[in-house]
């Protein structure tokens, strides 16, 4: 039951983009077409799940025993950057077609603060290994949901009569803000009702 709650929490209630405002760069930058948005969403989900596991291990088996927990941000960035590089190499070797499809998005994830964000949230919330992994996957799905919704809105916006001064990124940010307002309907009370 707790895991279902985690899923609902990180997909809807504290959606990484729309509630915590992390990962806004790809949210605006890669949401011009739904095709690339889905690609980016899947890549981020994959990296988030892996990063959650590895940062958990680094934190609990390296930093905590050595009393160096204040180095968590630095070491997490180090780990995530190398992880993304490694994932890129493996995908390029084993699945060139997927590599072509993801293209520039893969290395871009290195600088995606949402990945670092969920790693740090896992620590502050004190999650166990499985809980961290679940939170990582759920946040990735939440990110995918937000960016895919956004890309569909932006595809419609391209045909809409938008004032010149609002065209492009400004109207995208306004739409994103309205989406975030809509996501406020998902709150802790809803979760309590759902799970009893």
């Amino acid at each position, binding site marked *: 039951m707790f895991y279902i709650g985690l899923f609902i929490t990180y997909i809807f209630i504290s959606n990484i983009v729309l509630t915590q405002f992390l990962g806004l760069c790809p949210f605006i930058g890669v949401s011009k077409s739904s095709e690339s948005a889905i690609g980016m969403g899947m890549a981020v989900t994959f990296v988030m799940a892996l990063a959650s596991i590895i940062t958990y291990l680094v934190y609990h088996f390296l930093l905590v025993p050595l009393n160096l927990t204040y180095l968590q941000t630095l070491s997490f960035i*180090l780990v995530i950057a190398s992880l993304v590089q490694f994932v890129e190499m*493996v995908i390029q070797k084993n699945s060139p077609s997927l590599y072509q499809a993801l293209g520039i998005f893969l290395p871009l994830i290195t600088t995606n603060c949402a990945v670092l964000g969920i790693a740090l949230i896992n620590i502050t919330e004190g999650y166990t290994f499985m809980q961290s992994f679940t939170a990582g996957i759920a946040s990735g799905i939440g990110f995918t949901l937000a960016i895919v919704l956004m890309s569909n809105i932006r595809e419609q916006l391209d045909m809409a009569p938008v004032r010149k001064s609002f065209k492009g990124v400004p109207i995208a940010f306004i739409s994103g803000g309205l989406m975030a307002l809509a996501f406020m309907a998902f709150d802790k009370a809803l979760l309590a009702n759902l799970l009893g």
Partner: protein
Amino acid sequence: MNILFAFIIIGSLGLLLGLGLSVAAKKFAVQKDVVAEEILEILPGANCGACGFPGCAGYADALSKGTTENGLCSPGGAQTVEDIASILGIAAGEAQEKMVAFVHCTGHAAVSKRDFHYEGLDSCSAAHLLFKGEASCKYGCHHLGSCIDVCPVDAIHRNELGNIVVDPEACIGCKKCTLVCPTNVIKMIPYRGSHAVACNNHDKGGVVRKICEVGCIACNICAKKFPESGCVVEDFLSHCDYSKPDTQIAEAAAACPTKCIVEAH
């Protein structure tokens, strides 16, 4: 002491990850096609798609595998074809003749009639959906410039009269503008052609006269009086047949009553 400890831990963590990555880079090294990379360097890199492949990399790949033929790159011209042939070790063969886009219409708003005033999306295909555009002539240019937007080399621009014109020197012959044009008024002509008939209207002469001052009225003067001009009148529209001699084309252009035979460059 604490600082030193932190320094060592982060340093060794970074070193470990770096070593791991360099080992992985060796292990997962992807063999790249040397020939394809060499060809890719020669290709113009415009990624225009004129060859029918997704970008220059796609064409270079296919060339190195031998699944396609040399000479499909129109922006590169003869020099590129020769260079590629020398890399592949095959005879150069003949490069395709350089073709450039030409807008077969000079009917800007001052010289041609309008049925109504179009106000809407700044896109030719959107304007075309509404009674095939605001101009009375349904064959001509909408003058909204969707072709300007798709041109990868900025060869298309609007002149002071409001007509859309293609710069034949800059045009690389990728045909993107001909695909985006809803009236097909942009057609490819050989670069060597000095003149072109700037009209696309297949209506009878009387109809054309009423709606446009610069349209072809199919009077046959160019074809009959100047047999060496290369002009052919078909379906109430004159056009230049570039496979024929065109020694008299300048005189035919001067004699054209609506002056719709214009210099191509």
